[in-house]
């Protein structure tokens, strides 16, 4: 028994020592936790040159991974980049700090239409970083006519040539929007209509895939791919005479990733410096030019490559945008949707 106690106390002591080493706080280090291919090295270098603060860059693969990390309470990240719906979850869990806008001089560079979204009504916790859409990529040689509607995804002549995202909410968006409803619809009757469409569509779909939809489209394995604009824009840019990306006229999903400071951030001052730095017009344009995502920064547009600004896959026309919505928490309706989705996938 005595021996047991000795071992336990030795273990505790050892852990304590390790904790001690890991807990050192450094004013000159900023720990970033964001998506991969979101920030060019050149911008990180400029930030370090100007402020003397070293940047650690770690990546995550899903919003849920980020949530888990922040919930642990022992992750030392100073800046994170959650998507719209995850912002609401993080705020409701009390995992994000309120930002100090006196330190964010460049906040005024942001276009007002991207501010005050439902997921953070007064932008108390977030500064918009990148935004985009979920639409359609297609092969112009195989679909020579005008493609401007979600209807192509439900057209029998493309049987076996269609790819859908393996994502319940996004698939329902396509069906709901085609029916002319909001993508956050909660009415059971309308959801049933959408589910009916998706059930009929299943026979036409070659695969449900959220990972490599752009690659499969580029390789010619499918002719129509439902997918996020970022990846599709990249393959379209490589083969512009073969492929195209559109946001259907009925509208679709709008997504936005924002920079935030976790409640447990250790270097809050450096985090504010960084948030402000990336909204400087030249710096913001440098990021967009390297990463090919749309930024919410209006002042940066003067420095962004016109080819990117005119690329409808990256910066869609504002009339298309008017029909787009963010995916929101739809409460109990999600259970109904989930039941239909299981039926569709099990068919």
């Amino acid at each position, binding site marked *: 028994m005595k021996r047991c106690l000795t071992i336990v106390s030795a273990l505790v002591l050892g852990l304590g020592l390790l904790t001690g080493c890991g807990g050192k706080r450094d004013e000159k280090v900023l720990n970033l936790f964001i998506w991969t291919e979101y920030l060019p090295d050149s911008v990180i270098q400029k930030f370090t040159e100007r402020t003397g603060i070293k940047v650690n860059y770690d*990546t995550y693969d899903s919003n849920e991974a980020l949530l888990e990390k922040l919930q*642990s309470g022992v992750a030392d990240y100073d800046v994170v980049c959650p998507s719209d719906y995850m912002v609401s979850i993080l705020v409701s869990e009390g995992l994000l700090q309120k930002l100090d806008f006196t330190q964010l001089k460049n906040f005024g560079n942001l276009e007002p239409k991207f501010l005050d979204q439902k997921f953070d009504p007064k932008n108390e916790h977030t500064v918009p970083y990148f935004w985009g859409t979920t639409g359609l990529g297609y092969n112009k040689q195989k679909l020579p006519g005008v493609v401007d509607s979600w209807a192509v995804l439900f057209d029998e002549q493309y049987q076996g040539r269609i790819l859908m995202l393996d994502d319940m909410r996004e698939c329902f968006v396509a069906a709901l929007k085609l029916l002319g409803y909001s993508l956050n619809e909660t009415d059971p009757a309308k959801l049933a209509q959408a589910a009916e469409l998706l059930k009929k569509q299943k026979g036409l779909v070659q695969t449900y895939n959220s990972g490599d939809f752009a690659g499969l489209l580029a390789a010619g394995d499918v002719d129509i791919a439902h997918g996020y604009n970022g990846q599709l824009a990249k393959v379209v840019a490589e083969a512009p005479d073969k492929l195209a990306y559109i946001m259907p006229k009925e509208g679709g999903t709008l997504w936005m990733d924002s920079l935030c400071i976790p409640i447990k951030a250790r270097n809050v001052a450096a985090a504010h410096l960084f948030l402000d730095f990336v909204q400087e017009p030249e710096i913001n344009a440098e990021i967009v030019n390297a990463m090919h995502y749309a930024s919410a920064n209006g002042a940066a547009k003067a420095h962004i490559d016109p080819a990117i600004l005119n690329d409808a896959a990256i910066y869609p026309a504002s009339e298309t945008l008017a029909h787009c919505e963010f995916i929101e928490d739809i409460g109990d309706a999600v259970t109904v949707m989930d039941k239909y989705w299981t039926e569709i996938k099990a068919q």
Partner: protein
Amino acid sequence: MANGENIETTPAFHGPKVPAPRGAAPFQWERGFLTAHSWLVYFFLYAPIVVLIVLSFNDGRHAANWEGFSFRWYAKLMENKLLIKSVKNSLLIAGATTVLSTIVGTLAALALARFSFRGKGGTQALLFLPIIIPEIVLGAALVTFFGTVEMRLSIWTVILAHMVFTVSYVAIVVRARLSGFDRSLEEAAMDLGAGPLETFFRVTFPLILPGVVAGALLVFTLSIDDYVITSFVAGVGSTTLPLQIYSMIKVGVTPEVNAVSTLLLLLTIIMIVFAQRLQQAPGEPGEKK
């Protein structure tokens, strides 16, 4: 486990061995069948890896179609700081885990094989547990534990977490090696004047070395490809290669991933060849299996 083929400790398969046949005809038939079967098994195991290596030299951006030979993705890989950093992290973590787990696991195996103490049965059962518990449960439990003791997530928490599930493998493999151990060899060494330490390092350790090496290789492969547990416990500056690859999927997999996998495979092969050399090292008492 997906890496079964990397931890072979017996010499490679040298062709089918069938008992002496009575008639010539069935012998031919059996032999042909077994050869075909072996080739099929090898094809099944290695064809995906060959495809991965070939496509790492593909000039196109997408893994699926061949657009000509090039080293483009290897060059790109060298510029990808995040990917390089993650490979370094993975190697560091796998290396440290291998050393620590092998030492702890071997000592545990020795204690279990040599001594009887109160709670031995329980200790043995507990040793199996980390192998049986689903990884996701272990990951969630570890991150809750680190949160409770206020231990910041870092490269150290990843190493500790990897030790939790790999020590058991070493203990079990070494334990198996010890079960056929002839203790009179140790007694002879001590009779001839060797102290306990000298006996261990000159007699016991060389005899159990194949088990220890097999355990170490197992730990290395388990650690380097672990995703689930690592994704829970990784913190600042400890993104490993599997985490990095998963996060790259969001923007589409490029042959860069194939290139880095090919390099890693090369490293693993070198390690296995080295380990097999070590096991076949001459000048040791007793036969090696």
